[in-house]
């Protein structure tokens, strides 16, 4: 019972962070119908961003996160301007391959620089005990940061003018343009926000898991599962999907071997796509 409880709460805490990663993917899909296959490498860059700021500059990881997020935003805008903008109206194959080429470029440079050896950020916040449950401090803070970011994103999308523009462009780009929304800038901003969330989640993960430059790939796949669970293009759904995935990862090890986790995850993914492609909370429409 204790094992189940601690496994569940661990899963739930990580679920928040998965949710943030998936939110980045789903935001980009919702606004411009692009599946960003460079999502994983950007998560990995977020991890290495924390590693570099912590080990080389000695910055506290949570302050480093702000820097990582800013760089993530900038990187996303650059990727949008160079790559995505030109294939926005092309068929899906083109956008998929275009973002995948960015994936290859980042992974190629990353492997040359960091090799594929595992790295870790040697940082700890001790443990928190709640009755029978003991939680890692870094994971609690990570989950809290993820919640804060979600609230921030919600406020940005629903309470500010650029946020309203983003929603307008997601709804109907042509109509938004006619209303005077600078759609190109808004699309660049949305893509940047998406990659910012990816880099941010990568940074959070780096505070408690070891990682390699290729580690982003598995989080990217998890993000796909989460996006489909919550409904493609629905950021709040993504958080819920992240929690569900975290719970699954918490429950399964208590009833069968851990190696079955991906089988369940991806089977669920395909089933949801087939039965309810709009996800649990409904996709953007």
């Amino acid at each position, binding site marked *: 019972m204790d094992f189940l409880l601690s496994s569940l709460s661990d899963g739930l805490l990580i679920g928040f962070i998965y949710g943030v990663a998936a939110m980045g993917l789903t935001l980009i*899909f919702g606004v411009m*119908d692009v*599946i960003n296959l460079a999502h994983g490498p950007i998560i990995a860059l977020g991890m290495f961003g924390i590693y570099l700021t912590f080990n080389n500059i000695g910055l506290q990881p949570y302050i480093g996160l702000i820097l990582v997020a800013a760089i993530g935003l900038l990187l996303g805008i650059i990727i949008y301007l160079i*790559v995505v903008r*030109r*294939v926005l109206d*092309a*068929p*899906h*194959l*083109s956008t*998929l*391959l*275009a973002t*995948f*080429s*960015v*994936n*290859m*470029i980042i*992974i*190629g*440079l990353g*492997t*040359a620089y960091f090799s594929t050896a595992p790295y870790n950020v040697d940082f700890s916040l001790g443990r928190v005990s709640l009755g029978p449950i003991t939680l890692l401090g870094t994971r609690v803070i990570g989950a809290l940061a993820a919640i804060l970011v979600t609230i921030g994103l919600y406020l940005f999308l629903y309470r500010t003018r650029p946020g309203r523009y983003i929603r307008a462009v997601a709804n109907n780009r042509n109509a938004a343009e006619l209303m005077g929304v600078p759609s190109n800038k808004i699309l660049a901003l949305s893509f940047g926000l998406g990659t910012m969330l990816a880099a941010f989640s990568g940074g959070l993960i780096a505070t408690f898991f070891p990682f390699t430059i290729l580690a982003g790939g598995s989080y990217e*796949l998890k993000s*796909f*599962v989460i996006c*489909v669970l919550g409904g*493609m293009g629905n950021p709040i759904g993504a958080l819920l999907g992240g929690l569900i995935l975290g719970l699954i990862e918490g429950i399964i090890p208590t009833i069968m*071997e851990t*190696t*079955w*986790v*991906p*089988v369940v*995850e*991806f*089977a669920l*993914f*395909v089933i949801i*796509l*087939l039965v309810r*492609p709009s996800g649990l909370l409904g996709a953007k429409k």
Partner: protein
Amino acid sequence: MKLLNNHLGLLIALSVITLLAVWPLVTQKPADREVAFTILRAVALASSLNIILGYTGYVSFGHIVYFGIGGYVGFYLISQQGYSLYTAMLAGGFSAGLIAFLIGKAILRLRGAYFALATIGINQAILAFVANFDLFGGPIGMNINFQLYQDYGGAPKALQLAFYIMVGITFVTVLVSYAVRTSKFGLGLLAIREDEDAAEVMGVVAPNAKTWAYVLSAIFPGIIGTLFFFKNANIQPHDAFPLHTSIELLVMVMLGGYGTVLGPILGAAGYQRMRGLLLTSPFFKDIQLSVAGILLLVIILFIPAGIVGWIRNRFPKTRRVLQ
């Protein structure tokens, strides 16, 4: 002569493959034979993928799953049940086709990005399942006892044999690809690619046509999977279902020109050659992936129709010849 003129496109495609097949026979170097094997494998896989991707317009991102399924089924029959390579290859192709039929029935209802995501999900689900499946050796996979190659005249002879079979499979794959492209069935597929709803109105039974195109594009990867892992003497989950190779196949089809018979052949040969050169060059070997990525980006941004597509658009007279 008329026959020759009508099928000039096929002749060009087949002569490219013949060149690839004859080259290691002329140089008589085993290393060249291995390079040619890798290129032919890529050509056959890309041509198969082209049937569902290029002709029908469905982006199958995880197509390598059929290579893995065929590889595992065939390898199991060879190494654990003692079947011959030929029976195993048939079984590998059949099981890949059968699973493609079942999966295709379900996921071909999805369109666009959702279909692409589903194919990734299926590849990962089956990879994770096989890694837990004890009959297939779980995460460790299976091995072939080297004694087994004695039946084929020893390991060197077996490698030689595998190469000849690969040449044969590539020829058949390209012939099938050409036959589909020039048939009424292929015309239906092309119509689905342009506008599925309009195609249905015109009398194309889209669900059936799509499913058969998907099955057809899965059978050859299944056969090749068995052959490849027979030659490899070892099979592991991550070697059998590499998502990365799957995406490389898409790159090859794009590079050569999607929806053409010749495109995937040139794309696969060109990509493999380039990759080999980058990997062996001292300057590029560390960043070969980045260089390939930049090349892919340039192609997508500036010549989205691929090499063959570009030539066809630029010089309309070549359209009769370059299928």
